[in-house]
């Protein structure tokens, strides 16, 4: 099973590496990271913090954008182009195929994020800004967030078109970043129904804000170990549940 999943994953990575869209987004991210040096120079105060804010936000935004744009076509494209016909005629289950596609895209995104992070680290070194534990924590949780976002995009890709899937996945990402605020607002409202509804939303939607340690990294704030491993555990469980749902949907599909 592992070798079949790896074969699909490797090929997915190879396809992504040879994709033009991905290079375009990747190039923009690198430009923005480098441009953060110029933007930081415009400011008179807290140049180093602004540089880090822009750099970290660029890495996160572009990584998530690539995850959504490539992820939503992950399965749909295979069905639409009928490449899935020959692949699923081999001794490979639909679950293995979907898992392979997922692992391949997550691996590619981690590699790309790694390159962006290396460029960002180079920029920090040029400005003599030290890399701290907060940076490492932020990058680790970015990797977890990407795994969750790709799982969500894969789920939508398993049953709908890329256009709708990108709207759904994008919507979930935005809502997932606001779900904590929603829950807190609900709690403050004093209305029981609103409290229960916002608490339920917080439970169902991914709490993506828990993966964002950009502020801690940029400000050099201390990060507890539990701030990393708890969200990591949560992210892994969330992605696994979403993937089980995606496999279940994909298993039921007829390829007309």
């Amino acid at each position, binding site marked *: 099973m592992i070798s079949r999943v790896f074969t*699909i994953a490797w090929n997915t990575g190879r396809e992504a590496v040879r994709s033009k869209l991905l290079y375009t987004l990747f190039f923009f991210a690198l430009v923005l990271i480098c441009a953060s040096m110029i933007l930081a120079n415009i400011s008179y105060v807290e140049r180093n913090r602004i540089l880090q804010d822009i750099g970290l936000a660029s890495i996160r935004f572009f990584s998530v954008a690539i995850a959504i744009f490539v992820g939503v076509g992950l399965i749909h494209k295979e069905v639409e182009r009928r490449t899935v016909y020959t692949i699923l*005629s*081999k001794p490979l289950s639909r679950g293995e195929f979907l898992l392979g596609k997922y692992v391949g895209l997550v691996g590619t995104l981690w590699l790309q994020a790694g390159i962006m992070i290396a460029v960002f680290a180079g920029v920090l070194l040029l400005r003599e800004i030290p890399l701290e534990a907060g940076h490492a924590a932020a990058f680790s949780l970015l990797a977890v967030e990407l795994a969750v976002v790709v799982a969500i995009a894969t789920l939508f890709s398993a049953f709908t078109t890329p256009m709708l899937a990108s709207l759904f996945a994008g919507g979930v990402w935005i809502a997932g970043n606001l779900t904590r605020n929603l829950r807190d607002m609900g709690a403050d409202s004093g209305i029981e129904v609103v409290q229960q509804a916002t608490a339920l939303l917080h439970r169902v939607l991914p709490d993506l804000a828990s993966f964002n340690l950009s502020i801690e990294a940029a400000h050099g704030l201390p990060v507890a170990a539990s701030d990393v491993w708890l969200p990591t555990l949560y992210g892994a469980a969330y992605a696994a549940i979403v993937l089980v749902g995606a496999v279940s949907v994909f298993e039921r599909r007829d390829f007309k």
Partner: protein
Amino acid sequence: MSAGAPPIVRIQGIVKDFRPGLGLRRRRVLHGISFSVREGEIFGFVGPNGAGKTTTLKILMGLIRPTSGAASILGHDVGETSFRRHVGFLPENPYFYDFLTGREILRFYARLSGVPRARLRARVDELLAWVGLTRAADARLRTYSKGMLQRIGIAQALVHDPSVVFLDEPMSGLDPIGRKEVRDLILRLRSEGKTVFMNTHILSDVEMVCDRVAIIVSGRIRFEGATHEFLAGGEPEADVVLAGLPPETAASLEEDFRARLRGVAERIELRVAEKLVNPLLRAAITAGAEVVSVTPHRMSLESIFLSAVEEDRARRNRAGGEERT
């Protein structure tokens, strides 16, 4: 295959309903079809477009789930996956990852099919030579012609040396040379002892390569049997052309003599069993018709195919008429 040996492919009472759109209405595309394929034969699954050939093949490949009925390959239910290491499949108008080269795509499929690492390189080279693509092996698939893609499709179906191969319209869209090449490849598969299941609507190809055929029309199997029986055997028939036949007599002749009727200008052509020609002529002449010609008819696959389609059309017209009345 020995008489008692189990069939390689068995389809029993397969029904498939599709739900067009989001409504509750269902459209039945396969009406309880049954047939089997024997070891070592080239089996032609023949039918007009929309008859249900590809749906049947997709059910066999596990790409579509049947509504009811059972299908098995090599004794395994088609819902299983492990037995697929003995099965090869070429879909209609295959599409492959065009960012890969011919060699890369075959390696990809070989790995998925569990070809041992030690044999992989040699097997891929062997297949590329087998389908005549050694020189184009390192070119990206997006630069391949349709014929080359069809050949790489056949190579991927065979890369793991399966014992049964399913081909969906393998000669469709190919020029005469390409069709001849694919036909030769299929005959080579049989000479290597493989079982070949071929979906097609090109009857001349079926006549040339298939040992047995099944004809499907509107989701129902109309004929199943050996190709040579269709071509040489069967009941001898004749085409009788009559002029001035009253319409009511034509209808009764069609019914009484199980003749297939076709109107040609002011004449009527009836295809009827040879032994029924004399009584039919007597009845026609009594009704005032003039005999234009009587021609013995050689049964061909095409005629069986066309008559099945016509019968189906007539059956549906009758059903429509009854519904209206």
